């Protein structure tokens, strides 16, 4: 984690850690890390992270870290819906049933995806 934090934006996003690799990506102030085995595809893991962030975004509207703190359980639900046993389950962008119920007006200080030019 410390190493990932020390990494500069231009640097690459794979860290070797024992036999494993840590693939990480930073969205504004949030770091998303995935630990994968040597044979797993690194680039696809990056996109896995991205897709998860997109799902969060869709569910919360412009997602920010406060959304994830205050609705931590929903973060879990979406992750569960998306991944299972470390394997991707749904790559389709479709918000979960419960998430559909949530339409939050968002006055959050930063909109992560917007900052990344992705919104």
């Amino acid at each position, binding site marked *: 984690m410390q190493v990932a934090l020390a990494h500069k934006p231009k640097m690459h996003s794979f860290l070797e850690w024992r036999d494993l690799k840590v693939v990480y990506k930073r969205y504004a102030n949030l770091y998303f890390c995935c630990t994968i085995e040597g044979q797993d595809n690194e680039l696809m893991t990056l996109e896995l992270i991205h897709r998860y962030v997109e799902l969060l975004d869709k569910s919360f509207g412009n997602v920010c870290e406060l959304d994830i703190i205050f609705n931590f359980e929903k973060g879990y639900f979406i992750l569960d819906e998306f991944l299972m046993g470390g394997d991707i389950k749904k*790559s389709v962008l479709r918000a979960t049933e419960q998430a559909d119920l949530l339409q939050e007006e968002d006055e959050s200080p930063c909109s992560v995806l917007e900052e990344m030019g992705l919104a």
Partner: protein
Amino acid sequence: MPAVSKGDGMRGLAVFISDIRNCKSKEAEIKRINKELANIRSKFKGDKALDGYSKKKYVCKLLFIFLLGHDIDFGHMEAVNLLSSNKYTEKQIGYLFISVLVNSNSELIRLINNAIKNDLASRNPTFMCLALHCIANVGSREMGEAFAADIPRILVAGDSMDSVKQSAALCLLRLYKASPDLVPMGEWTARVVHLLNDQHMGVVTAAVSLITCLCKKNPDDFKTCISLAVSRLSRIVSSASTDLQDYTYYFVPAPWLSVKLLRLLQCYPPPEDAAVKGRLVECLETVLNKAQEPPKSKKVQHSNAKNAILFETISLIIHYDSEPNLLVRACNQLGQFLQHRETNLRYLALESMCTLASSEFSHEAVKTHIDTVINALKTERDVSVRQRAADLLYAMCDRSNAKQIVSEMLRYLETADYAIREEIVLKVAILAEKYAVDYSWYVDTILNLIRIAGDYVSEEVWYRVLQIVTNRDDVQGYAAKTVFEALQAPACHENMVKVGGYILGEFGNLIAGDPRSSPPVQFSLLHSKFHLCSVATRALLLSTYIKFINLFPETKATIQGVLRAGSQLRNADVELQQRAVEYLTLSSVASTDVLATVLEEMPPFPERESSILAKLKRKKGPGAASALDDGRRDASSNDINGGVEPTPSTVSTPSPSADLLGLRAAPPPAAPQAPAGAGNLLVDVSSDGPVAQPGLGPTPEEAFLSELEPPAPESPMALLADPAPAADPGPEDFGSPIPEADELLNKFVCKNNGVLFENQLLQIGVKSEFRQNLGRMYLFYGNKTSVQFQSFTPTVVHPGDLQTHILLAWPSPLAPGLPSWDEMDPGRDPSSALLPESLSVPATLTVFVLDHIIEHRGHSVQFADEAEGGQRPLSHARYGGAPQSLTLKLPVTINKFFQPTEMAAQDFFQRWKQLSLPQQEAQKIFKATHPMDAEVTKAKLLGFGSALLDNVDPNPENFVGAGIIQTKALQVGCLLRLEPNAQAQMYRLTLRTSKEPVSRHLCELLAQQF
């Protein structure tokens, strides 16, 4: 106000979370949490039943508190209650709490499993999915035991919804990874393969993951998946970017599924079916072609997804390693990535190219990128990227570019990160050795390594350079000169001193002619470093000094002065003190000839696997080892000798025991009248023998020598038909062995215990054990008569020059101070020791083998059974008034020092081929003297000491064995093959070893056994 969700959001939870966030200090936070915990506890314990919403809210709060890092010791029951709720959100929170917080040995597990079972049976797909998720998230063995049998049924049931199938597949995968034994294989496996044809892409994706994992264990059961996977892949690859709608990710069709299919195909060799293979190659080409097309989107997601497929395709091409055209295309593609502005891509390209370099088809293509890679090594900002570049340089190195690569790596080493320096050092050392055309370049490179990164040069590296210099005459002079120059630097690394000390001690004479490096200059240069060095290095330098006394007699006085100094003779370190004392004594008592023998140049080291390579393999782990050790590497290493690192003492200096041995080889001038043979009746005074008694001053040996001063014998009558010693019983000639000695000895070639000799008077039993180059032998003397033997005197002698090859330590019953015989008969002079009637008495003998050239057969032992007191000549014994003597050979044959070595057929043949010089082989064809019984033969070969290798020889009748002979100085790898011919009643025996006399000798020994 921070975002608070409405709808079914839990306001109480949101308030709690913002309270926590508003806490100014850790203490305030803990206080707030404790308040909340008390509140929840009272609610749970209260009389009033809580409604579902409240339960959910409180359980969720507990979860949050847990995630903040606090222990939660209640609320589990409420969470389990939520599982049986019919409201989705309540059930969901219940499952989440269980997944995060309940450990597998909880006593609640039965209740939880029950709830899961109900949900699995509910036929409500959302509930089933929740239950499957919980099983997968917990993934414990208990979960596996409870559900592993049910899930395959759900997976292949015709009426399961797609989402349930998907969850079931992934859940099963998780359980299989956690405990494979719990997942029953059965007819469902065939149906899982057909899920690859499912219309629902999500189901296919999940199924591919499951199959990829399952097929690793039972590839044959899932073989049919190859063609299905290829056709699926082909449909995806050829589809337009929008065909797959939902499953298109940033204009890339189904990237996850594509990557997984490519990964699945890497579990198998190329498809055998030509049509399938053709289709697959077409796919791979399409992917490579697409990489050249302009991107459909500027977004990084698009290029990542596209390149993920590309890298996976390249992995598959490398895995097949059979399509030269594709391999070269892959290499060119990676070459483009090497210069890409995305660091991720450069990193992955370097990594991928590293495996590509080991393919014979693409090795040349990889080499064309050398400049880019060198540039990467210099300019990349990430250490892990630079490390990949260094790996790739190592992988692409061959004779043509070795000099360039090694010099670049050396240059990089100066600025390299500390974390990877040692690895770079090892790699440079290996490359320099492997591709050295002239060894002066090799020596320069290693000395540079020590200069630049001395701290990271491990023992293995400098041992290796010494091995190579010792073994190669042509480089010794150059090495001496270079190392001498290197030592002149004002500050040089201790490793340089070690290498310098060793090389000058061995080969300093080669540069002594030059007045600038005359012996005194060499000595004072080395000695100027002495005081700054560690104990180990100083010990090595002391050995160098004694070698100098031999090489350069003119330095003797100076060096003796150094050795005599109080700082050496009374050094607090035992090793240094001992070396100083022994070397000083050696230099003053030994004649020049003796010195020359003792301090002779070290013999060449046996070929063995490079210790550095072994180290690098260890460092990298087994996976990387195969990549390092690819097929193109010269097959020069001889593993049979490998694996065991030389200990510093064997490499750096003859050990003290060897020195003392040399001393014994010729008696010191001070005692010229001492018989040569008597020197062998030694009590070991070495420091490292198992029975060693470090002795300074007059040793037991000397005392023993004086005791052996021979008075003239009375004419005795030999007990056994060997009158020669009796006629001339001088102590130098203890008599040749009895005629049966050889035959008796033969019995012990394949066994270690038994009766060595027996007649009507005496029985001698032997029990022996051998480990590496050491042996211990117990001799049991049994008096079969009803009267005492008087002056029973066993001794050990070595005929000829055997003592240079074998060292026998005999805690002799005759040696003063050793109790064994005195105890039997206290108060008696040892010279009149008695062997009581009908009694067996053991004596112990320790054997060290120093060298491989043991002609053990010439080695004999005498037991003098003497009656009627004290007639000194040892070779006589009296029985019934007549002295009797008996000389036998001790059953120590070279094969006793065999260490069995197991190896695979392939390794055996490779080594067999490596030992193809005519002098390395010994062969004998001989007639069977015993019945030809395979089991007996097997037992004999095992008793001989070698490992028996099954399934190596194509003819099952034949026997093949392998082992290593361990001696003090070296190890000799031995391979043997015995071919029985039952019809002709003949055998053919072939031995191959790296040392000619060993082959011959083993062959003779073994041939007599059948």
